[in-house]
């Protein structure tokens, strides 16, 4: 293992890429930890955004305007502002205020940067999920819904048993696309010093000036993650396929 690592570093050095940080435990260990943090971040935000998307969808379709209208406003706000600004508004404003308020009663702020990134990204992508699902709902054949209603399903049962399962299937390509965007966006977590792979790379390349070498690693890493997500999406699409629809 060690021999092949040295051989790899030598070969990369001949191509002009500096991977010597892998030999230094003080840099290798944080870097590998950054990889783990990035993966945790992706998993947490995928789950969080799915939940946020579902909640937003229910709110958007709510029959009371005082629930639907704020949800609509939130969707428009989050779709039309940069995620970085949203992240700063949450972390540098809300988190700062929480820290200051808690300091008055001598309590440490329990919310860490990781939490804020997951929260902001989940809400942001949740809005996109909700929009994709809403489009799927509008595409449902009205006869199916009438059939369900005539069988005596009430609104709630119809939503969970008939509308949502069918909508999930039609909206799946759009949802998977959102998840791929989400994976790419987690690179931004480095902006508030979450120790993800991008952040650790920035620390290494400011020391060693090997931007290109690390950039290739990051691109490959995110390429792999997005590939895995789209693979999972295709698998789900095949699993949930309704016979008689599509190619």
């Amino acid at each position, binding site marked *: 293992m060690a021999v092949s690592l040295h051989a790899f570093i030598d070969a990369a050095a001949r191509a002009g890429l500096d991977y010597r940080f892998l030999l230094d435990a003080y840099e290798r260990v944080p870097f590998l930890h950054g990889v783990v943090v990035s993966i945790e971040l992706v998993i947490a935000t995928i789950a969080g955004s799915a939940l946020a998307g579902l909640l937003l969808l229910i709110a958007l*379709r709510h*029959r*009371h*305007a005082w629930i639907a*209208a*704020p949800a*609509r*406003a*939130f*969707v*428009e*706000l989050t*779709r*039309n*502002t*940069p*995620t*970085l*600004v*949203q992240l*700063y*508004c949450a972390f*540098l*404003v*809300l988190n*700062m*205020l929480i820290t*200051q*308020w808690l300091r*008055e009663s001598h309590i440490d702020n329990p919310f860490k940067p990781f939490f804020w990134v997951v929260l902001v990204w989940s809400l942001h992508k949740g809005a996109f999920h909700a929009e994709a699902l809403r489009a799927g709902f509008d595409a449902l054949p*009205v006869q199916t*819904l*009438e059939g369900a*209603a005539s069988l005596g399903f*009430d*609104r709630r049962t119809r939503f969970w048993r008939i509308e949502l399962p069918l909508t999930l299937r039609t909206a799946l390509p759009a949802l998977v696309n959102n998840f*791929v965007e989400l994976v*790419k*966006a987690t*690179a*931004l977590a*480095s*902006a508030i010093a979450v120790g993800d792979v*991008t952040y650790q790379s*920035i620390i290494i*390349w400011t020391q060693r000036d090997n*931007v*290109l070498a690390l*950039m290739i690693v*990051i*691109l490959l890493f*995110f*390429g792999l993650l*997005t590939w895995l997500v789209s693979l999972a999406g295709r698998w789900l699409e095949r699993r949930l396929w309704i016979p008689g629809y599509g190619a």
Partner: protein
Amino acid sequence: MAPRSAASPFSDIESRRDGRARRITRARGPAPGTAAALGVLIVGGLLWTFAPDSGSRGETLARFVEWTPALVHGFALNVLISVGAVAIGSILGLAIGALGLAPSLPGRIARFWVQAFRNAPWLVLVYFTTYVFPFEFTVFGKTLPFPDWLKVTLALALPASANIAEVFRGAVASIPTTQWEAAGSLAFSRAQILRHIVLPQCVRRMLPPWMNVYAIITMGTALSSLVGIHDLIDTAQVASSTVARSSFTVLTYLATLVIFFAYCYPISLFTHWLEKRIANP
């Protein structure tokens, strides 16, 4: 039809059947954009009031007024970068989109370009151009500076070109194949069909998604603050750490949010309006 109450268990289906009822329910209440702006102002006002602070709120406002020109100047840089990136991206994207239609090797390279730059994280591209490109270069013995904002413009032009190439492909794909065949039978060459028959029809269809790309790129210019360009967000950070008052920080970041929203939301509204107009002229 019998008058229906909102509590009817079938109200949603009935409103689907009756398009007019649906539109009426939609139109009730303030427009979502206004509601969003109101929400930000209310939440911001609450936070501003309750932010623990030593000085008076009036002084905070005075400091904010002092910093306003700097913030506006920062946002002008965001707009400059977005316009530059979309201009370069459009030219590149149209060329790549046209190449991508060809089944030959250049076509394959063009399709690879689209795949690569649609899937790369923008932040990585921004870091890449900022740190890998030289800070100046020499042409015919003259040394020209290569400023960072231009590098970020190029970095954002890459994904813009990939997205615009896709917009182009989508527009060309929406033209029925029979038109190509009919023009071909009139002895037009492929390039001639594209130029004289397909493209004129594509322009209208491309406008809404193209504006969408513009709005997304504008939001992407937020990344430039991470590589030390003095854009709106960087200015907000400098301002909040210089003034160092909680209420000022609340004000500055919410102003940043509102400025971006005020710029991007009208674009998105206009895009929707255009889409509707093109769908049913």
